[in-house]
């Protein structure tokens, strides 16, 4: 239980100020010089081809310096972590959710929970602006905003026994902030699920190979589920090994199916896939976890970590050159086909995961704070895991930027613009100012054994082509390109489907919880009719957006992805506002800039983007301008391209209205939360006495454990001393 006590925690012993020895000065100087050179090459080269290795070097050097210096500064000066203080995992250890967990395991758990398809999709779309804006935002965004948010929320939640972000918003900012946070969480969840499902639909449409392999994951997961449940309970490693073997077989078999008479059965239209996904989402979320979700989780975690590691190794060995310009014209004209709008604010909206992702604050205030052994480990688990995710985003950006720009636009512009043939796509790409011949476009599709690559939006196919390019140059040559392409599609679709299942459950749980206040039975998680009804509501909610996305003549990704970015950044604003309020209330006004500056930036970006999405008079950007344009034409009985008939026209009008209203709603929520937080901060600054804290009281810790990944010499001595005196380690 948390008790409210005056703010007088025993001040932690001042950490001994260790002087930097000459060796570490030399190492850190070398890292800084390497980073500076890499950044210089990226920023100053124009017109010549840049090797992707420079991106990797710039990223890693920047991360290392940020982790060593900035994160350490925050941990020591701002958060004032205290390793003599017992964490909730130690105090409340129940062997179930509260459990002190080795930091190396916990960082793996946390990384697996935060990193999904987001960091893979956003950077691919943002490559439209060139490689430089995306790279800079991914790296500087994570250092000063994203990783800070994850770590600070993890720390504050840990000090409050693992409270959720919503609870903290209610406790620290007030009821209004709390309700706004709740609405934000629910709506981002719905939009997120719709966008992710849309990525899968676009990746699988008209691809019998991909559709067959992904469909096979269902029986494979069911088999694993029963195997784990009845034959070999708890033997996760062995089950996963069998599952991964079957998964690889399913990818290979997809190629055979594509060549066989079964190909037509697995060639599905986007609409058919949408209905299939909605039905799947419903049944997956009402089945017991052990049957489908748990085994899928094992498979997708393995594939995720394995493939990302493979990609990192592949980029370093293959050392491909970037084909994209550093900054394209679309950055200033705002007329890019992938998403509309100028560099500011839209790059910062499109790339959320990997730079700053509000969603992470839900993980940082959920399971992870209940498992941390030592307070100082928030740096490794919170900041470190987010740096890893950022690196994944850099990898995805590289994979998109090594493609010929002509191919990139032929794959990522909406179908309405490109038409359906390679000839129409080729001439549309030429209109954009890039070149790809119809023959090259057909050849690119033939290489990965897909019917077509035209308008395969959503990021996944682009990433898969980039990855197959990298992997096949390291292993197997061009003969394996098709395998690697479908391997990459499988890898992405697999964990998107896991997220769809898990996300539907979380949305349902929130809905049950909220509705349970009005009508008791619906709140009971074991009451089946309530479970089915709330599951159906959640599935239909994201299913609606998915369907509008699939059928939208203007392109679903083009229309929905900015909305997803805005929702995600809105949640980040809530999280950073909570963190800033806590810093101010606990008398740390001096350090409040650590979260207040990212908050100000995030609010500027989100509000500017929402403003443009609502009020811009350019139909390509403003949802209402777009609505008016199509509604006026509809009144006159005209059909505007890319709509093909009056039904299309009506669909555009409805979608633009819904999306415009949502953008406005998100902006209003941000303003409410920030205004409320500012008022609370103002009161805290004016108050003579320090405000009561909501931290759990101090209890002395008996656990001895290192702070970082590798124990220091001093920590090794402490560990040895503790184990000889029989203390817990």
């Amino acid at each position, binding site marked *: 239980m948390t008790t409210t006590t005056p703010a007088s925690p025993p001040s932690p012993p001042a950490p001994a100020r260790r002087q930097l020895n000459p060796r570490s000065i030399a190492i850190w100087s070398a890292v800084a010089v390497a980073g500076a050179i890499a950044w210089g090459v990226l920023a100053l080269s124009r017109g010549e081809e840049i090797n992707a290795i420079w991106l990797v070097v710039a990223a890693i050097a920047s991360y290392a310096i940020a982790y060593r210096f900035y994160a350490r500064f925050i941990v020591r000066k701002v958060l004032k972590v205290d390793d003599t203080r017992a964490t909730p995992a130690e105090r409340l250890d129940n*062997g179930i959710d509260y459990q002190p967990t080795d930091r*190396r*395991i916990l960082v793996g758990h946390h990384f697996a929970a935060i990193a999904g398809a987001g960091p893979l999709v956003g950077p691919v779309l943002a490559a439209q602006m060139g490689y430089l804006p995306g790279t800079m935002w991914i790296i500087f965004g994570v250092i000063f905003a994203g990783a800070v948010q994850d770590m600070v929320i993890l720390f504050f939640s840990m000090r409050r026994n693992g409270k959720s972000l919503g609870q903290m918003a209610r406790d620290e900012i007030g009821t209004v902030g709390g309700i706004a946070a709740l609405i934000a969480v629910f709506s981002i969840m719905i939009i997120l699920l719709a966008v992710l499902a849309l990525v899968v639909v676009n990746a699988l449409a008209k691809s019998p190979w991909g559709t067959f392999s992904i469909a096979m994951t269902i029986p494979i997961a069911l088999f694993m589920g029963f195997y784990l*449940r009845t034959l070999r309970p708890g033997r996760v490693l062995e089950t996963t090994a069998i599952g991964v073997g079957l998964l690889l077989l399913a990818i290979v078999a997809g190629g055979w199916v594509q060549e066989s008479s079964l190909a037509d059965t697995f060639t599905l239209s986007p609409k058919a896939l949408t209905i299939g996904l909605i039905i799947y989402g419903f049944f997956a979320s009402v089945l017991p976890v052990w049957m489908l*979700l748990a085994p899928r989780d094992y498979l997708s975690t393995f594939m995720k970590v394995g493939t990302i590691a493979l990609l990192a190794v592949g980029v370093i060995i293959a050392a491909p050159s970037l084909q994209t310009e550093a900054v394209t014209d679309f950055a200033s004209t705002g007329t890019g086909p992938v998403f509309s709008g100028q560099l500011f604010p839209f790059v910062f909206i499109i790339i959320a995961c990997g730079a700053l*992702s509000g969603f992470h604050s*839900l993980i940082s205030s959920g399971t992870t704070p209940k498992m941390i052994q030592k307070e100082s480990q928030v740096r490794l688990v919170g900041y470190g895991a987010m740096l890893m995710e950022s690196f994944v985003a850099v990898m995805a950006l590289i994979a998109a930027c090594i493609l010929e720009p002509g191919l990139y636009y032929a794959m990522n512009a909406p179908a309405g613009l490109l038409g359906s043939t390679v000839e129409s796509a080729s001439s549309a790409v030429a209109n954009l100012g890039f070149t790809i011949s119809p023959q090259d476009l057909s050849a690119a599709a033939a290489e990965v054994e897909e019917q077509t690559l035209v308008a395969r939006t959503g990021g996944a196919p682009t990433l898969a082509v980039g990855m197959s390019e990298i992997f096949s140059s390291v292993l197997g040559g061009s003969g394996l390109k098709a395998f690697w392409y479908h391997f990459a599609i499988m890898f992405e679709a697999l964990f998107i489907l896991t997220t769809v299942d*898990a996300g539907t459950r979380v949305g349902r749980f929130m809905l049950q919880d909220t509705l349970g206040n009005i009508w008791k039975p619906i709140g009971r998680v074991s009451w089946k009719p309530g479970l089915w009804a709330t599951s159906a509501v959640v599935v239909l909610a994201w299913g609606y957006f998915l369907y509008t996305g699939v059928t939208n003549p203007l392109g679903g990704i083009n229309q929905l992805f900015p909305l997803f970015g805005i929702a995600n950044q809105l949640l980040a604003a809530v999280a950073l506002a909570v963190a800033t309020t806590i810093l101010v209330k606990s008398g740390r006004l001096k350090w409040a800039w650590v979260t207040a500056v990212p908050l100000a930036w995030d609010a500027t970006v989100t509000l500017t983007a929402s403003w443009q999405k609502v009020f811009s008079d350019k139909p390509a950007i403003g949802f209402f301008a777009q609505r008016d344009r199509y509604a006026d034409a509809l009144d006159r009985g005209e059909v505007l391209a890319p709509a093909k008939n009056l039904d299309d026209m009506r669909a555009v009008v409805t979608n633009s209205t819904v999306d415009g209203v949502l953008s406005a709603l998100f902006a209003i929520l941000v303003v409410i939360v920030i205004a409320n937080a500012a008022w609370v901060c103002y009161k805290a600054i004016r108050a003579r006495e320090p405000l009561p804290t909501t931290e759990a009281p101090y209890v002395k810790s008996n656990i001895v454990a290192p702070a970082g990944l590798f124990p220091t010499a001093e920590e090794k001595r402490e560990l040895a001393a503790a184990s000889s005196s029989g203390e817990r380690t």
Partner: protein
Amino acid sequence: MRRALAAVRWYLRELTGEAEYDHYVERHRRLHPDQPLMTRREFEHCRTDRRDENPTASCC
């Protein structure tokens, strides 16, 4: 070499939760030595079924 393999195995067992039962047994023997121990099957069923009632999200 053998040590590295053992470390990898330890890491994977811990990460996937395969080692949870061992932790449970150790903890149970330490705290409640007089009470009966769940079998592996019972324990794993409890552990998975708990997730039915406490869903956790993974991110985007």
